[in-house]
């Protein structure tokens, strides 16, 4: 196995887990996290996993509509996740109480529609812990 220290990028290429706790509508934090994620990828770092928790799960809503002169943060997250093939998890217990459901959760709870972008999966806190243990850095945005 090649040690990270043996690679030319070792000095600066790090693995990040980002924890996003804020809804896109209620504070600036979701946008700060989005800008941070974009920049760290541009700088050659890696995102181990995005984890949306609490009100942060609303960043995965594909039913959000914004005025034309404002950024649609959930759509921007979706585009970033798709373009970079990122792992993105939405906390299940935070999500279902806020109406963020994928096909499996909609079926389980007998709901007529889904609302979660397919680029994110609905999962549990264990996936946050796992990602943190595989990361060099964990940053929280709230």
């Amino acid at each position: 196995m090649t040690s990270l220290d043996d690679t030319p990028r070792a000095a600066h290429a790090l693995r990040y887990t980002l924890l996003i706790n804020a809804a896109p509508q209620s504070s600036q934090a979701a946008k700060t996290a989005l800008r941070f994620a974009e920049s760290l990828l541009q700088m050659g770092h890696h995102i181990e996993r995005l984890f949306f928790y609490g009100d942060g799960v609303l960043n995965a809503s594909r039913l959000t509509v914004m005025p034309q002169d404002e950024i649609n943060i959930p759509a921007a997250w979706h585009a970033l996740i798709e373009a970079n093939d990122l792992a993105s998890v939405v906390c299940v217990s935070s999500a279902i109480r806020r109406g963020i459901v994928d096909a499996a959760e909609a079926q389980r709870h007998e709901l007529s529609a889904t609302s979660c972008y397919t680029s994110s999966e609905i999962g549990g806190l264990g996936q946050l812990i796992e990602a943190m243990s595989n990361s060099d850095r964990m940053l929280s945005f709230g």
Partner: protein
Amino acid sequence: MNSLHIIAKAPTSASIAELNAVIDEGDVLIFIEDGVYFARTEFSPSPSSAPRFRHLECYFLKEDLAARGIEVLEGMQAVDTRGFVALSARLPRSVSWY
């Protein structure tokens, strides 16, 4: 092991006391979002209270300063989001204050 403190809320006496209680020598501070209002207490020509953090390495997120009409004053260091990422890479741990 030093930390990067990410301060996203405007200063209050309670938050200043909490910061003072946990910040170690060698820690680095970055003020983002409403946290950039710390520029008024720490760096203004006539600070509203005695500076507490100026002896530490402090940075302010440039776009958040601009969005709030706060000038970069003498002694203040402003960074963009890439600079924020670079600080997070330099320090082994981070603490978010929000």
